[in-house]
């Protein structure tokens, strides 16, 4: 075919001007050096990577180089990088960006990351990749800065959004992109409007519950790739054509897993620590359980069930968490019956009188049994628990720092630094789990269990990632004969969450698209009338998950 060829008109004009001013002409030596440099700039092949030659101080793993090549050569620079947590997605994105920049295909870049990661992105790009990335400041220079790193929350605000939308970016990188799976959010709509030739979406959990969630992510990359919204839902939402969908997805997504990377990973040593409620605690737990029927009568059945469930889970974490919910519920109720008010108030009084939470006691025992300089990260789902634990640990002479998603960027960095250099414990709430890398620590306590199994993987991934040199110890605390234990025994143990098959977990979830796991769990616990009913429903869920996975394995080996 005929290809358009553009000539160079500029050089010739400058040349005749230079000839008329002999003083401006080059020396023979300069001229030769110019040619020598030009020969260094030859990139004779469309394919392959020249970046490693430029960055001798960075060790790129084979799977990372393969990923970069695949993204550029087969996916045309539009891809979801969905490696498991801790395999270095940032490195892969940096490698791809650098290669494009060296080849001169990309110069204008926007990187959107969670606020807590902006500094880290800038640092990595500058120090590892020599890419002059700039952190957005109070008055960001969107037009004049070539490689800008900012949080999506800042970028989507006016007047920034207005300017950003008019810029033709060569490349957009969005970190933690799973947050963009809901097309109705402002963040999604903003991301959808960005002009870009190349686009990388980074997420360890492209699919949190349903395969169909990926539709909107892919529509950011390649609108129409999975058809229009209507055709997509009619074809795939039912789940019948999962295999086809899977194949389509693989053409725009790279997902490296620990076990397929050919790398030596340190081990994960998982310990489940059963904990008993005291008699008094058991009594309070039971009275919360007994609230279910009156609460259902008071409001609608679903809400009442969910509320009871929440308080049960909270009590397994801390008195304070349950107390807060009880108090708020009481305040919000419209003309409650005197009996339920009385009942709830007596529970609140009983909560007040409970001694230290048995989990907190256990945590102190655990920490005291380790060497003086051992550090640990504790994850909890509840703010109230976080505060309580911080207080309780300090009562026992253990230094700790809190970590939350809501912290400002600088505070997060500072907390991490404090933990690294001064404190023994970092207490993180769920949202704080993203975007901190804590390879220097190798113990993690799951103080309470999240209901989305992917969350556990994400928590562990903060520590068990590239650069972790020791085995990672993971402790799960679960209170016997409570809802926590149901989750633990009936679901997580069955699907092998704790037995080291970690990494396959997300594999299971990818296949499992019947109904969101979380929704299923909630409805099971809030609507089931008896223990037996719960048990049956949980076993059903576990077997569904496993069956789906084994079916897939058989398919793969046959």
């Amino acid at each position: 075919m005929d290809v358009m060829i553009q000539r160079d008109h500029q050089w010739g004009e400058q040349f005749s001007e230079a000839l008329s001013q002999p003083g401006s002409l080059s020396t023979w030596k300069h001229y030769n050096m110019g040619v020598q440099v030009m020969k260094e700039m030859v990139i004779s092949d469309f394919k392959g990577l020249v970046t490693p030659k430029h960055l001798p101080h960075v060790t790129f793993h084979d799977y990372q180089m393969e990923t970069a090549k695949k993204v550029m050569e087969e996916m045309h620079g539009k891809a979801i990088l969905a490696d498991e947590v801790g395999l270095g997605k940032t490195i892969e994105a940096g490698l791809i960006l650098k290669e494009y920049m060296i080849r001169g295909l990309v110069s204008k870049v926007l990187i959107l990351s969670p606020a807590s990661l902006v500094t880290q992105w800038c640092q990595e790009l500058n120090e590892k990749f020599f890419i002059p990335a700039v952190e957005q400041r109070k008055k960001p220079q969107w037009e004049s800065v070539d490689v800008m790193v900012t949080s999506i929350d800042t970028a989507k605000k006016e007047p920034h959004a207005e300017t950003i939308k008019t810029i033709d970016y060569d490349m957009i990188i969005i970190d933690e992109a799973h947050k963009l799976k809901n097309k109705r959010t402002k963040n999604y709509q903003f991301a959808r409007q960005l002009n870009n030739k190349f686009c990388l979406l980074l997420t360890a959990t492209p699919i949190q519950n349903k395969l169909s969630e990926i539709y909107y992510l892919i529509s950011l990359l390649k609108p129409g790739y999975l058809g229009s919204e209507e055709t997509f839902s009619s074809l795939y939402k039912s789940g019948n054509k999962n295999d086809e969908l899977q194949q389509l997805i693989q053409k725009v997504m790279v997902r490296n897993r620990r076990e397929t990377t050919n790398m030596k990973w340190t081990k994960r040593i998982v310990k489940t620590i059963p904990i008993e409620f005291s008699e008094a605690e058991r009594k309070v737990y039971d009275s919360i359980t007994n609230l279910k029927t009156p609460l259902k009568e008071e409001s609608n059945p679903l809400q009442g069930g969910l509320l009871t469930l929440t308080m049960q889970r909270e009590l397994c974490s801390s008195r304070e968490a349950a107390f807060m919910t009880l108090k708020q519920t009481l305040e919000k109720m419209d003309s409650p019956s005197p009996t339920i008010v009385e009942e709830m108030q007596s529970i609140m009084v009983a909560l007040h009188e409970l001694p230290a939470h048995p989990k907190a006691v256990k945590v102190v025992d655990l920490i005291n049994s380790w060497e003086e300089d051992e550090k640990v990260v504790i994850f909890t789902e509840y703010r109230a628990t976080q505060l309580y634990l911080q207080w309780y640990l300090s009562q026992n002479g253990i230094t700790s720092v809190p970590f939350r998603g809501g912290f400002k960027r600088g505070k997060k960095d500072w907390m991490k630094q404090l933990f690294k250099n001064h404190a023994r414990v970092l207490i993180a709430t769920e949202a704080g789990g993203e975007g901190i890398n804590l390879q220097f620590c190798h113990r993690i306590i799951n103080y309470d269990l999240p209901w989305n199994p992917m969350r556990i993987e994400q928590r562990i991934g903060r520590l068990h990632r590239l650069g972790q040199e020791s085995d990672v110890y993971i402790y799960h605390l679960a209170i016997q004969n409570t809802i926590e234990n149901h989750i633990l025994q009936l679901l997580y143990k069955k699907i092998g969450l704790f037995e080291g098959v970690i990494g396959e977990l997300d594999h299971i979830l990818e296949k499992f698209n019947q109904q969101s796991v979380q929704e299923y769990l909630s409805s099971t616990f809030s609507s089931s009338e008896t223990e037996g009913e719960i048990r049956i429903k949980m076993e059903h869920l576990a077997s569904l998950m496993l069956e789906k996975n084994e079916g897939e394995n058989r398919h793969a080996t046959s």
Partner: protein
Amino acid sequence: MQQADIHLFLSDFFQENRCSIQPLSSTAFEVQLSNEIDKEIMNRPFYWHYIEKMNGQPSPFKLKIETDSSKMNDDKKTEFIHYGSPRLRQLFSLAIQKGKFGRFYEQVQPELQSVPLKPWLCLNGFINYHSHLKKNRFFSIGLSLITGEMLNDFHDLVQNWKIDSQLPHYTFTLSPLVKESSGIERIQHYLVSSVEKETHHWADEAITKMNVDLKLLEQFYTSETSSNETYEKEKQTISEQFQPYVTLSIENGAMFYLNSHPVNYPPLKF
């Protein structure tokens, strides 16, 4: 370029730009920057503005440079320079800038009668192949402005000659029959026609890929109620991503006045 080549390049470059060099070891040296190079590479425009306004005595920086990573110590003042380091990239582009235009004469030995030097035009640069991927090819073409003869790899032919920007004694230059501006045209014409003769599988591939994506986009918008404007915009972005094209870029070039024919050098000595 290996580290040894980089070392050589650096010391050549600084010396050529009147920066004095003090060797510290076989892989390290200290360089006293000239005012000019300090302005070019040290990124301190305010300092230089101030000095010039105040008529002050400038004190350009001294740099310590190490080209062997194993010899780097904690001395923060020493810069380790390697193939990908920003400093080297900066000097590379400065080197191209400084070598952009030339006029050179073969330094012939004086003979009994004055010697004629024949004009050649040489252009060096890249042929760039763009689509969603990119590669380039170096060219160095010499054109005789008397006979119209064209030579490939001209720079390789002449780079080791005795050449200087001064016209030697007892020589005179012949006037070109072809003007240098039409010489530039001829060389570009030659490059264009040689590119046209190539088979462009890469371009076919890019077009195929572009059409696939354009079709997907169209399907997406047939049911989507978004504005026509976003559709057009996205269509355009896809074309920009894949549209194959070739550009010629001339990076440097020179008029050469040569007595010998480039393929016959070195001249026979009697």
